[in-house]
């Protein structure tokens, strides 16, 4: 019974394994192993294009994380408390389900129509809207499982609305918010299509820089970069997993 499982894992991890192994290759050759070397790791940091891309991506991802978490949480609380029926909820989660290409060209059209110059700020706006949907979904799921009588008890004991929110609701939402934040960060870090359409050629994000590298000239430091990104993602995913037990909610 477990044979299909192992085969699937083999399929899923084979490419990643190749990349990680080759990141330690002593030669420039992508297809022949010539010995162990760590040379490509520092090379990554010496590559200008990569560093610029990385800097931009970090700026974008951090801004998006902060904005999306705040807006997404507010949205989730608003939906949970003040709306009935699924319309607003569906609207809020829609960006997560629509094809990214569609959102990308739409945003490009909008920015162009309003004569907004493209740059990191437009990417931040685009990513925030997109990531917000995920945060809303996660926090909403968490809200659905909270005991409403806790809030009622707080009010009954004399705490006002704001105090109740800050001392009772928010701490309970915290794990969901952190998971949403981690998710937003990872999504923004990795997002290519929307960024591709909404940024200026002078301000590429890391995925865009990688795209250029892959298209025009593959250098081995890509493997090192990929491996490092892989471990960042692993930590982010495990962190998010520990905090919300996302898989339990599935």
């Amino acid at each position, binding site marked *: 019974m*477990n044979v299909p*499982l192992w085969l*699937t*894992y083999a*399929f*899923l*991890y084979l*490419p*990643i394994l*190749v*990349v990680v192994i*080759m990141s330690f290759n002593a030669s420039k050759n992508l*297809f022949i192993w010539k010995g162990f070397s760590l040379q490509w790791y520092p090379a990554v940091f010496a590559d200008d294009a990569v560093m610029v891309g990385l800097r931009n991506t970090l700026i974008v991802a951090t801004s998006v994380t902060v904005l999306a978490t705040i*807006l997404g949480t*507010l*949205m989730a609380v*608003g939906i949970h*408390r*003040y709306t009935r029926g699924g319309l*607003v909820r569906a609207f*809020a989660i*829609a*960006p997560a389900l629509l*094809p990214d*290409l*569609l*959102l990308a*060209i*739409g945003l*490009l*059209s*909008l920015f162009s129509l309003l004569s907004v110059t493209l740059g990191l700020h437009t990417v931040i706006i685009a990513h*925030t*809207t997109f990531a*917000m949907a995920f945060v*809303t979904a996660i926090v909403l799921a968490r809200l*659905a499982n*909270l*005991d*409403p*009588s806790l*809030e009622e008890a707080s009010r009954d004991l004399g705490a006002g*609305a704001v105090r109740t929110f800050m001392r009772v609701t928010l701490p309970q939402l915290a794990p969901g918010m952190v998971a949403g934040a981690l998710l937003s960060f990872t999504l923004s870090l*990795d997002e*290519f299509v929307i960024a591709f*359409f909404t940024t200026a050629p002078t301000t590429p994000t890391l*995925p865009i820089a*990688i*795209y250029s590298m*892959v*298209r025009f000239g*593959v250098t081995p430091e*890509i493997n090192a970069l*990929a491996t490092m990104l*892989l471990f960042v993602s692993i930590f982010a*995913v*495990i962190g998010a*997993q520990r905090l919300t037990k996302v*898989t339990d909610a*599935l």
Partner: protein
Amino acid sequence: MTSTTPTSPGAVPRRTRRGWAALPFLTPGTLMLVLFVLVPLLLILGYSFFKRGRFGGVVFTFSFDNFVRLADPLYLNVIATSVGIAAVVTVLALLIGYPTALAIVRLPAKWRTIALVAVLLPFWTNFLIRTYAWILLLNNAGWINQGLEAIGLIDHPIKMLYTQQAVVVGLLYMYLPLMILPLYSSLASQDAQLTEAATNLGSGPWRVFRTVTLPLSIPGALTGCVFVFVPAMSNFVIPELLGGGKTVLVGNLVRDQFLKARDWPFGAALALVLTILLVALLVAQQRASRRLTEGPRAPRAQRNRAQKVVSRA
């Protein structure tokens, strides 16, 4: 005007605090959504009915030209190929994903989470890099060819890269986790007592799977199919990197219109067609799921009568 009624954990509070309290929560998010999701989508809808300006802008004269142009066999072919490839990817994802999800569900509880996270992890690595890895694998000098030659199965490399098959493999690799997750969720939420009841009534393991587990998992499978089909149709990076520009899909066309040919209205029309296809698919999937779980719906009059009988019983 807060009226509180006793609620159980998990229930939505029955208070409806209307008015000013809702504003600070809902406004910022809604504003962003309207401005940066709704308006752009409407723009695209609009643009598809307009024409391209001489130097690449948009001329706001209403016309159906773009849709007429779409009817050209060249473009219809592209759309058909995209649908075809997305369908193949979806079917493959189902064939691989279903046994995988089933195997995970049957693992002891403590291994299940690890198994799921293990499926998710590749999904969370940079997608360009995952695609690039397949270039390493599929290249004539790449790892798969090397491996096959090494064990003597072939004597010269098989051309795998820059073919339609490579695009299929790349897309499958990309979106397989999106099939496994909803399938797993559906299978995991099935009441274990149902399989016990089926066994108790005389069904061997295969019959139990065929008559109980499988039918109940269909809504989850349909969700997975939609989750795979939708992005598979609109992806342009994989066809480009793994298909070598020979395989042109809808996504590539749209991207070219917007960034190379600068014919935004036509690109918008293409995107619109894509969206309509996908919405139709989603609606069909919802309908099918509901029909399977709730059974064929009786005409309204009969349904109302039925409700009254039940409440009296």
